[in-house]
């Protein structure tokens, strides 16, 4: 695993808590403002920052994130802009990963992307629509560049698949808590603890649980069994509901602090 990513989980484990992993799309509402929002997330207590790469066909995302990435694309966000955002937030002390659908990475060039991400201070990439079966070249390239790879497991994954996905993963393992798309939910699915338990039997990799977490209480309940608590749509919604960027930073920092308390209970 990438050393800086490993350190995040090691420190959280030492403090007997889960890591807080926060997602936000680069370029929303603008490249500069997305950096301000991400900085606020980190100030509030986000340990690992997922920088979203906006894509035209985000088929794993619910309406909140869809609207944000559509807006980012309308103002012209590109892969180069995303890498600049990674560079900025890294300078501000964040530990950034990129979350991207596969086609933009393939189009940019696997090696070029992994190399530039490393130069920008990125520690890993989460690829929600790439499975290990199609990832041969990506595995070789990321190994070469020291970039962590995060693949996903889902409640529907068989044990054979969980093992295959774990073997291909060199970052944390992303456990989708529910069968569905991203978005805020009243309740985090009860399928998640069982999934994490199955994952534990085949790997020592840290496991992050995402999809549906938005409150301190939910963060606390997920932190009880996972190594990382992943929150995305709640941050995006906080920005969408804010009247201006200063209000957005304030709301996001407060939400981040609340979730950071959650992962410590």
């Amino acid at each position, binding site marked *: 695993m990438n050393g800086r990513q490993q350190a995040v989980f090691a420190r959280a484990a030492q403090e007997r808590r889960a890591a807080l992993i926060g997602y936000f799309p680069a370029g929303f509402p603008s490249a500069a403002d997305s950096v301000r929002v991400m900085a606020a997330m980190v100030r509030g207590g986000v340990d690992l920052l997922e920088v979203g790469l906006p*894509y*035209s*066909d*985000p*088929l*794993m995302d*619910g*309406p909140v994130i*869809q*609207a944000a990435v*559509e807006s980012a*694309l309308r103002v012209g966000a*590109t*892969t180069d802009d995303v890498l600049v955002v990674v560079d900025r937030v890294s300078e501000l002390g964040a530990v950034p990963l990129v979350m991207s659908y*596969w*086609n*933009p*990475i*393939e*189009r*940019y060039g696997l090696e070029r992307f992994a190399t530039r991400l490393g130069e920008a201070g990125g520690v890993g990439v989460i690829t*929600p*629509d*790439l*499975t290990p*079966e*199609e990832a041969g070249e990506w595995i070789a390239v990321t190994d070469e560049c020291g970039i962590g790879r995060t*693949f*996903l*497991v*889902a*409640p*529907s*994954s*068989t044990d054979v*698949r969980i093992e295959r*996905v774990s073997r291909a993963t060199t970052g944390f393992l992303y456990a*989708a808590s529910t*069968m*569905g*798309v991203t978005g805020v939910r009243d309740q985090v699915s009860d399928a998640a603890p069982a999934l994490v338990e199955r994952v534990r039997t085949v790997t020592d990799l840290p496991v992050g649980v995402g999809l549906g977490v938005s409150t301190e209480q939910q963060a606390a309940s997920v932190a009880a069994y996972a190594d990382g608590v992943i929150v995305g749509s709640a941050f995006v919604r906080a920005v969408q509901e804010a009247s201006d960027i200063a209000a957005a930073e304030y709301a996001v920092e407060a939400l981040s602090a609340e979730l950071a308390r959650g992962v410590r209970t």
Partner: protein
Amino acid sequence: MTLATDTASGHYGPYGGRFVPEALMAALDELDAAFRDAIGDPTFTATLSDLERDYTGRPSPLTRARRFEVECGGARVYLKREDLNHTGSHKINNVLGQALLTTRMGKRRVIAETGAGQHGVATATAAALLGLECTVYMGEEDTRRQALNVARMRLLGAEVVPVLNGSRTLKDAINEAMRDWVTHVADTHYLLGTVTGPAPFPEMVRHFHSVIGRETREQILAIEGRLPDAVVACVGGGSNAMGIFSAFLDDPSVRLVGYEAGGEGVETGRHAARFVAGTPGVLHGARTYVMQDAWGQTVPSHSISAGLDYPGVGPEHAWLHDSGRATYEPVTDAEAMEAFELVSRTEGILPAIETAHALAGACRLGRELGRDAVIVVNLSGRGDKDVVTAARWFGLGVDPTE
């Protein structure tokens, strides 16, 4: 097929595969196993062929286009009449196969995407026939362009959901259908309408349409006593083309030509000519030719025909293109509409505007091949749904929506 295809892993050369969220992998494995099991089961194949005969009305005729061919260089042109199937297009072939598979897998609900509405109508039809719940996703833009088909689907008992995000067209309807599927996969089958998407969809949809090619081969051999010189079809996702091509892939003497939408002209950028302006990429679960910008963002396509208005194409077509076994050419809106008018007036057949692209291509090819050539065109659908568009195009002043 002797080319480097590997349908077991869902790859066609470098194309195809599965680029989907992990949550769908189990469902795709289940579908793959159920599909292979079903096509080896005589009960399943008998049920399907009974439905094809008694419900769809197969075999569909092969009609010689005697007056049309005179205008096209004198080559003998035959039309494979998929327009005469129940629901008016080839789409029913695939839909019946997958709907039977749905009940076999013990699922009670189907979802589908639709552009022009033909696949949506066919899916709603099969769902009604087999007692399945049905939800159809359709871009909001398309629900307005094809209001009649929306009504047809609702009359058949389907729920039609207008999709308001992205470009509000077919590609966004597919995104929304995938989101529904990942959420309800336990009891829902995604009845994908063309030879795109993750494996096993391209292979499975081709299989259920291969009846078109098998019949055509038998019919043309009976009439002409020889194989045709060319078999041509329009290509949106490419299901009608794969259906008819599939029986001729191993006959090198038979030219296979796919016609994609040249829209307002490839040079204008407003088209769906993936093999002219697209590049290999990943869209909707498979690697294939995609209309995309320098950053890998999908570029919206354009065509007068909603069924060809799609920025991706089936991965097997991508491979047939690269390997040279099939060739693909753009046909503009104007050329298609000219062929639409010509075949209407010479043969008394109103073709779907999608199909009119293939007819325009056949005419072009007929002039090139000359008098002794035999050309088969897959007449994939009828044009009733396009009467308003055509009336507007030709300025007939009888716009029924006004």
